[in-house]
Every structure is written in structure tokens, then in C-alpha cells.
């Protein structure tokens, strides 16, 4: 058995900002004056102080006609209808589950917005209410779609499609929601042998690929705890996890292409080495280059 202990110094810290060809946008810090001129409207992330429009968060300024707002670099998830999210059940209530989706308020999953096991379609009665913890209990992970946004900003989710539902064995990776690129599809069966759900809320789920015929349309309520994920799958999942964290560390946008490129570029390192800053930066730089090359074509 080997044992790796690496202790580095702060002076060896490396700068992990990757300078692309595009210009680095001007970043505003909280309390910084954006403009002193009057005639502008105060948007999100700003406040008025002695007739000057001031930033209240760190981020980039966005202007729409007379409306000035600051979009923060780091923030919680602001849901939009139709987004794919990955969330964790925090509470089981009457007729609803509370779900942690990395937003300011817990999201709601109504009993009427889930598919019952077996795909039965009927009105949900009191019996179903009593069975709720059998379907989903505290700590369970689900993938879902945003159905509605309430007035207070909390989200209503639904899983009434076979692609959504309870998640089985795998790893959850948390990144900033702003790093996940909006795409047509957020479910990916990667060629390297793992599946991935890129939640718009910054929660990314990586799991071994399940073949189509194995999924028997139970609405994702099956859970096979006895099945052992083989070593090869595990290595792929761990490598993907470390690649995603490396990309997120360098503030690179995450989509299936960038993750796959990073995965391919990381092959020269051991999975374990990808926890160290230098290989992480190297993988990100190589990924960035490949993304540019692809754009040029």
C-alpha cells in the first residue's frame, strides 16, 4: 500500500486563471461606483449611495437601455422554467418533498408531479401520501425539471418523465451554477463509459451507464444497492469528477465537449494526480486550446 502525503507552500500556489483570446471583462467589486450620472435605473446587484450607482456584488456590469445591473460571478441558482436540475431531498412533508437545489429557498416537488412506481396514472390519495417516504426519503438525489417559479423565487419541480427521477449509484459534484453551459440536452452518455447529468443548478451527477433494456420504465424508483460498480467504471467516474473540478477551478464553462476534451487530455496523468494544482492547470490549458481549435474550424 502506498501512501501519498504532499504538503506544499502558499508561495508555490499557481495562478489558475486561463487567459483566453477574448478580452477579460471589467469586474466590479461591492461598493465600487458604477456611474455618478443620473438617469439610469437601478437593477439587480446595485444600490444608490449619494446619487451614485454602486455595485453590491462582485461581477460584471450589464446594461439594457437605461437599466444597469451587476451579474455576480458567484451566486446561488436562479431557476428558469424548463431547466434540468439535480437536487437532494431535505424534507418529506404532506403531499410534497422539499428539495435542496442550491437556490436561495428549497424547491418543492409535489406528490402530483412525480410518476408513481410502475407508471400508474391516477389521482394521488391518502395512501400515496403515507407511502411518500418509500418513494423518496431524506438524502435521496433526484433529477428533475423546473415547472414553475413561485412569487418568492422558490421553484416547483416535476419528474413526470422517464428520464427524470431518483438517482442510483454515482458521484455528485458541486460547481457554481454560472459555469454550466445551457444546452439543448443536459443528459449525456459519454463515449468513455459513464453517464452524466449536468444540472443547471451546478450539481453534476456522474454514474455508470445503464443500458436501455435494463431500464424497465419504473420511473426511476429502482435502486440496486447490491450491484457493485466495476473498477473500470469507477476509474472513469473518478477521472471525470476530477476533470470537472479542475475545469471549474479554472472557471471554464462546463458542457459535454469541454468535459470530454478534458477527460481525453487528462489521460497522461493518473486519476490521483489530478488532485494536484499543476496537472489540473495543464489539463485546463490543453482543453482550452482544443476548444479554440474547434471554434476556428
Amino acid at each position, binding site marked *: *500500500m*502506498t*501512501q*501519498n*502525503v*504532499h*504538503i*506544499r*507552500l*502558499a*508561495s508555490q*500556489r499557481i*495562478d489558475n486563471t486561463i487567459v483566453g483570446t477574448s478580452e477579460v471583462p471589467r469586474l466590479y467589486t461591492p461598493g465600487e461606483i458604477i456611474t455618478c450620472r443620473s438617469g439610469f435605473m437601478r437593477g439587480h446587484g446595485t444600490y444608490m449611495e449619494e446619487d451614485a450607482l454602486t455595485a453590491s456584488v462582485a461581477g460584471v456590469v450589464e446594461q439594457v437601455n437605461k437599466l444597469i445591473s451587476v451579474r455576480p460571478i458567484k451566486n446561488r441558482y436562479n431557476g428558469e422554467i424548463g431547466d434540468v436540475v439535480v437536487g*437532494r431531498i*431535505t424534507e418529506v412533508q404532506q403531499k410534497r418533498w422539499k428539495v435542496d437545489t442550491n437556490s436561495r429557498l428549497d424547491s418543492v416537488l409535489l406528490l402530483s408531479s412525480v410518476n408513481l412506481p410502475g407508471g400508474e396514472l391516477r389521482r394521488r390519495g391518502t395512501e400515496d401520501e403515507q407511502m411518500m417516504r418509500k418513494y423518496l426519503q*431524506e*438524502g*435521496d*438525489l433526484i433529477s428533475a425539471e423546473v415547472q414553475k417559479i413561485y412569487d418568492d423565487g422558490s421553484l416547483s419541480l416535476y419528474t413526470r418523465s422517464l428520464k427524470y427521477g431518483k*438517482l*442510483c*449509484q*454515482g*458521484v*455528485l459534484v458541486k460547481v457554481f451554477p454560472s459555469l454550466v453551459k445551457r444546452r439543448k440536452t443536459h443528459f449525456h452518455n459519454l463515449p468513455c463509459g459513464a453517464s452524466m447529468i449536468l444540472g443547471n443548478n451546478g450539481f453534476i451527477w456522474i454514474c455508470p451507464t445503464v443500458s436501455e433494456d435494463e431500464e424497465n420504465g419504473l420511473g426511476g424508483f429502482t*435502486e440496486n*444497492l447490491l450491484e*457493485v*460498480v466495476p*473498477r473500470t467504471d*469507477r*476509474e472513469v*467516474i*473518478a*477521472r471525470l*469528477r*476530477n476533470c470537472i473540478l479542475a475545469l471549474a477551478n479554472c472557471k471554464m464553462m462546463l458542457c459535454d465537449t469541454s468535459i470530454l476534451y478534458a477527460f481525453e487530455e487528462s489521460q497522461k496523468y*493518473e*486519476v*490521483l494526480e*489530478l*488532485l*494536484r*494544482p499543476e496537472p489540473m492547470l495543464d489539463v485546463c490549458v490543453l482543453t482550452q486550446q482544443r476548444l479554440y481549435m474547434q471554434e476556428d474550424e
Partner: protein
Amino acid sequence: MAEILLSEAEKTFILHGVEEGFRCDGRMRLDYRPMEVETDVVSHASGSARLRLANTDILVGVKTEIDTPYPERPREGKIEFFVDCSANATPAFEGRGGEELGTEISNSLATAYQSSQTFDLTALCILPGQQCWKLYIDILILECGGNLFDAVSLAVKAALHNTRVPKVKGACLDGGTVDLQLSDDPYDCCRLDVSDAPCLVTLCKIGDHCVVDPTAEEETCSSGSVVIAITEKSLVTSVFKTGVGSFHPQTLIDILKVGQTIGLSVNKALRAALLEEEQQGRKKECFGFLK
């Protein structure tokens, strides 16, 4: 410990990974995550250090003060640990939420440093039976990413290594009271010998196997862990168990053997890092929390 929620399936995945010897982040059972250490980060403390182990962030400050020694140990100085769990780390630490964990960590450090063969407290004696130095070691937990015991003990050792105790130029006895004259020059000070200070190594039992440096997720899966305090000379100064699980005597003996070798390499790595920093001299840049 601040527990995080995990689903049964995730726990199973972690458990099988440990059995396989390949954990979720690609480490084997006895691998540590990379750490980063910096000393002398707090300018108004006698000694300080900051240690980051993945997401675990620890800041330690050492303050020296003159005190009277314990009557039963007239030739020894005093050392006191205090752990503050910042609510920034996890909301569970808000109010008095982190107090229990803080006391547990500070008590474990106090026991680890208690033995006379570890950190030499006689060096802190000024006038036997009358005056001695007391070291207040304040530990701040800024972020919680698992494996707090190891990270805290390493940070404490680094901070003690950085500690500068002012030199005493002279003392005059005036009746019963002692009047000490300290050196005015802030650079005229003595260092502490930390070569015998212990490091804590946590071995976390998941399933039938033990892992070192567990992540917060792995800690949730474990039934219990054994924490071993080891010095550079591979002397075990204290052993205690946390969590509810039980250990078979034979497993415990195996764990102690494994822990001893790991403790040695952890101590060695920290020593190498501290020596390297020392060689950069006084002009070294302070990075602290920037970047």
C-alpha cells in the same frame, strides 16, 4: 461533526469504492489529499499558520503570555488550546452549534501534547515555580471538508514552529513579586523546538477497511474512527476513538501499526515544507487568503 445528507446509493458507492481500494476521487485507502501550508499569516500573533487540505481550511494563531506555573510542575510552562468553529464553515456551527466539536478537538490536542516526551514545556519556564510562558493556541475552523483532526494538528504544529517567544533579559525579585525585563527588539526572540510535537492521524473505518484523510462524504459513511497522535520519532502519545462504531482488538492493533507509518510520513512532509519555507527567509511574500 457536521453531518451531511447522503442517499443510500451514494453511501453504497463509497463503501464499494473503499472495499475496492479505489475511492471516489481516485485515491487509494492510505492516500492524503494535497495540502497547503503557510506560516506567519497573522502579523499581530506570536506565531501563526494556515493550512488548507482540499476544502478544509484552518487558521491557527499563537499568543504568548506570562503566567505562574502549576505548583505540581514548577519547571514547566503552560499550553492551552481553544477551537472556534466559525459559522462560515457550515450553518450548523451557528451560535453554540460548534462548541461540542470545538471542545472535542481542543481536548484531543491537550491529551496529545500532555506527555512529557512530546512538546518540551520546560523550555517555556522562566523562573521555576514563579514565572513561565503560557501559550494560547487559538484555532479557527473556516471551512469544513472532512478530516478536521489531522488538519488542525498539522496547522498547530506549523504555528508552533513559527512562534517566537520574546527573550527575557533579566529579572529582579522584589519581595514576593518578580519583575521581568523583556527584550525590546522584536527580532530578539527564541524559537520553540517542535520536532517532538505530535500530529494526529485519523483512520476512518468504512465497511471492513480503514481509510486516511476521509472527505466529509466518507465521514458520513463511517461507523467510527481512531485518532492517533504520533511524533516524528514514531512515538504514539495518545489514541482515542470517535463515532459510535466498535473495533475488533486485532483490527485495532493493525490500525495502530498502519497509523504509525502514516504518521511518520505526515510528520516528514510537514517538516520538509516548513524547512523549505524557512529557507525563503524574511523577505518571503505573504499570500494569505488572496487568490
